[in-house]
Structure formats: C-alpha cells, structure tokens
C-alpha cells in the first residue's frame, strides 16, 4: 500500500514567483490497484510521481510504503521496489548498448552490480521468450544497439525491463505520450497485460482521457495540486470519456485556457 500524507510542495519559495503546488495533498493507493491520473499541464501529476520516487523532495508530509515512512530514503533506494517508465523512450534504456546487455542490466536489479559477467548467455533464450511476447520482432535483434530502435520498440523494451524483476509499484509517467497512436495502443495493451499478470500496484499518468477511462481500476483528475475527481470500482467503470472531458473543460475555463 502506498500513502501520501499531508504533502506540501512550494516551488521558488520566498521569491515573487512562489508557487504552491501541493497544500496538504493526500492519496492512498491500496495493493494491486491500477490508478489512472489525468489533469492539465502544471496540475501536479508528474510532481506527485517525483515525490513518490524521491526525484524531488516534498517540503512537508510523508510518503509511506506498507506502513513504513520512506521520506529519508534517496531516489535510487526507493527504486529498488519501484519500476518506472518515462515519457521519453530514451530514458528507460541504454542507447549505446544492445538489447541483450540492456535486459541483462534490468535482470540484475536488486542484486549487486559486481565483477560477475555482465551478460549471462544461459538467459538468452529466456529473454527471447519475453521479447517475443511483445510481438514486435525484437527477439531477432538481441545484438542490435537500442539507440537504433524506434521509439515504440524502445518503450516496449523499457516497459519490459522495468517489470522484469519483482517490484511492488509501477510508475508510468505519460509513457505513451511520445508515440504514434497505433504504437501507443500497443504499448497500452502491453501495460495492461503486464500489470494484471504481475498484479502490480500501478500509477499511470496520462494525457489520453480514453486510456484513463478504458484502463485501470480507479481514475483521478488532478487540478492545482488537488484530486478534484476520484472514482473507483463501479463508478469508475461507468464513467465515460465525455463526462471526464466535461469536468476537464470546466477546470480549463476556470483557468482561462
């Protein structure tokens, strides 16, 4: 279970540009829940993920995982139980290394990166098997540099790599935003499959309202650092894209957009 308690975050504190993003923000995500988060730019979606992952520190408040406060843990320590896929496909993989090397790195997560051989040849077949499930033909490109793959292929690989080892939370930061609509659909279906198979607690930030409606057990709309809409269970299932769009337009009008 993941809890955010009384999170406060002020940017440019003490200057004329002071901006209070979160003022007493609370969120509880139970185990195995798949949460979709939507909201306009600057509403605090990505900042929320960054606070969870430790990429930015909250000014006040607690991040609690399974009852343990992880405020003092640094980003890389938190990532031991968190898998994260970024908007930018190049952030989840190493461009100058080949697919096999990238997967070997990911497969070793949680174990020490010592002087053992980087690539274990015996795992090649297992990796190929995993890649073939993506249906993108990557299993025949084990020795291709990841930098020469397309954005969609890299994002699929990044998704696979972030979920290869046992993790508790999956953080998806607009992970389909940089992809063309068709590839985005493929990645989204892969995401759903992985999340359900591994029963991961997932927070997905997206600008695509359709994905937010179609996928996930719960939908949250963020606005000015607050969750102005939060539905789960049956009320989430019955929600329509139009309904979300309506709320979305209302807040946009309010902002003068």
């Amino acid at each position, binding site marked *: 279970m993941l809890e955010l308690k009384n999170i406060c975050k002020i940017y440019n504190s003490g200057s004329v540009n002071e901006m209070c993003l979160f003022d007493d923000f609370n969120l509880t995500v139970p185990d195995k829940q798949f949460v979709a988060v939507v909201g306009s730019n600057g509403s605090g979606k990505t900042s929320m993920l960054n606070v969870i992952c430790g990429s930015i520190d909250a000014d006040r408040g607690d991040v609690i995982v399974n009852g343990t406060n992880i405020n003092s843990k640094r980003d890389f320590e938190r990532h031991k139980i968190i898998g994260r896929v970024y908007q930018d496909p190049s*952030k989840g993989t*190493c461009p*100058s290394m080949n697919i096999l*090397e990238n997967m*070997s*790195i990911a497969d070793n*997560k949680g174990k020490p990166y010592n002087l*053992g051989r*980087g690539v274990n040849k015996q795992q090649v077949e297992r990796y190929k098997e995993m890649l073939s499930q993506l249906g993108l033909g990557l299993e025949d490109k084990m020795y291709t540099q990841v930098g020469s793959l397309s954005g969609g292929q890299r994002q699929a690989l990044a998704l696979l790599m972030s979920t290869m080892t046992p993790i508790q939370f999956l953080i998806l930061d607009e992970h389909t935003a940089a992809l063309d609509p068709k590839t985005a659909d493929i990645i989204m279906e892969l995401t759903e499959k992985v999340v359900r198979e591994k029963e991961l607690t997932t927070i997905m930030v997206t600008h695509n309202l359709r994905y937010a409606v179609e996928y996930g057990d719960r939908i949250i709309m963020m606005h000015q650092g607050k969750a102005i809409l939060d539905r789960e269970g049956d009320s989430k299932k019955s929600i329509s894209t139009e309904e979300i769009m309506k709320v979305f337009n209302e807040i946009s009008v309010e902002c003068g957009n």
Partner: protein
Amino acid sequence: MALLISVLEQGLIYGIMALGMYITYKILDFPDMTVDGGFPFGVVLAVVMIRAGVAPILTLPICFLAGCLIGTITGFINVVFKVRDLLAGIIMMTALYSVNLRIAGRANLPMYDYYTIFDNKFLDSIFTNGPLSFLVSFRTVIVLLVIMIVVKVALDWYLNTKSGFMLRAVGDNDALVTSMGVNKGMVRITGLAVANGLVALSGSIYAQQQGYFDVSMGTGTAVVGLASVIIGTSLLKKVSFFRVTTSVVIGSIIYKGCVALAIKAGLQSTDLKLVTAVLFLVILIVTMDKKKKVKG
C-alpha cells in the same frame, strides 16, 4: 627507425593514459583535468619507490591503486560537493602539483642507475645475451606491448562485468542507473577511480622509460589524452574489427607520430606543447566538421 621506435614507445605509454581518459571523457562525459597532476603523480611515486629499492614491477600495481585513490577524491568532490566536473579536476590538478613536489622533495629527481621494468637482468638474459638478441632495439616496445595487452584485456573484461555495465549505463542514461536501484554518484566515482588508476599506471611506466621525474612533466597530459581518444574514436570508427580500446591506443600512437613529424620538420623541442595544442585544435575542428555533415 629510431623515430619510429620512439613514437611507438611514447604512443603505447600515453595510450594507457588515453584509455583512462576514454573512460572519463567518452563514457562518463567528464573532461577530467586531474590527469595533468595524476600522470606525474604516477611518475614521482615510481621514481621514489625504485630509488628506495622497491621491485620495479611492483610499482605498477601500487601506482594504479594510488591513482584510483586520486580519482576517488576527484569523484568525491564532483559528486558529493557538487563541484562542476572541470573545476573538480582543476582543483585536484593544482593540489597534486604540490603533492608531487613534496613526494619528490625537489623539482627534478633522476634514477638512472636503477633496474627498471625495461632494464633488468631478466630482460638482459633474453635480449642481450639470449635468443631474441636481434630484437634488442625493440625491447622497450616489446615490454610495453606486453603491458598494453594485459591492460587492454583487463579493461575490456571490466567493461563487460556487471559493474562495467553500470559504468557504461551511467554515461549513456543515468536515469536507468537510478531505476536499477543503484547510486549513480558511486558509479561515477568508480569510473573516475579506474580511469585515474590507468593514468597513474601510465605515469609509472613513463618514469621507468625516461629515468627521471620532473615536476612539469604533467603539463598538457590531458590534451594528449583527449586528442588520442578523439582520433581513436572518430577516425577509426569505421574499422569495426577494432575494439574501442584498441582504437584509442592506436589513436595515441598516431597522435605521437604527428607530433614527432612536426618536430622533425624543423620545429624545436621547446615548441612541443605548442605543437601538441595546435594539433589537438585541428583534430577537434576536423571531427566537429564531420558531425555537422552527418546532421545536414
């Protein structure tokens, strides 16, 4: 012939230093000025140790470890105190100048009458009186080649370990290193340690080839290293059967060859650093031009 041998000797010795700079400059994207102090640091340690009676071959691993320590400090300044990479190196380079003087006790320290890795009874038994006497003028080059092969194989091996993978990943995409639950700062420090270990190792070999320490020996080392790395990685890019590490060493030999030719063409040995700098500038401009063409 003498010129060729001299170029090979210099190129191979500086090649080991260039391998260190390959790690910092190409892999970590860290222009490490520490080498201007780290190279003579290796020189002075080797000279002092050999004068004190330490076996010459032992000075190599000791200098490597001492270099690792220096690299660790540079990394620490950069990662923990968040001092910019270039400045962290300059701070270390400046500090090491005095450290080197302290270790030597004076600005110039010779060791002409001591056995070294290039001049000892074992090599005499092979080259001077032994079966390979026809290769006697190449003996320094042969010893250097052996050392080079050991260093290159070791570095290639390291870059293919899990730790080496992390090192390559941190320069490529440090977000991935964090995602793997690894402290990217520690990985950078490790990389700088290994790199400066190689630099000091190179210095300890240079000491035994030259037979003395001089406090100004280090000036311009970083430029030589960077030039070698850039020649090696850009000019030899198309030759795919070379590993990058081999390309860097060849780059170092080419660079030393160019400098030697320039001096031979009539410039004086006092112009050496000027030639070094101008040649580096030319190489930078030439390789930059290439990149533009690719983009356009």
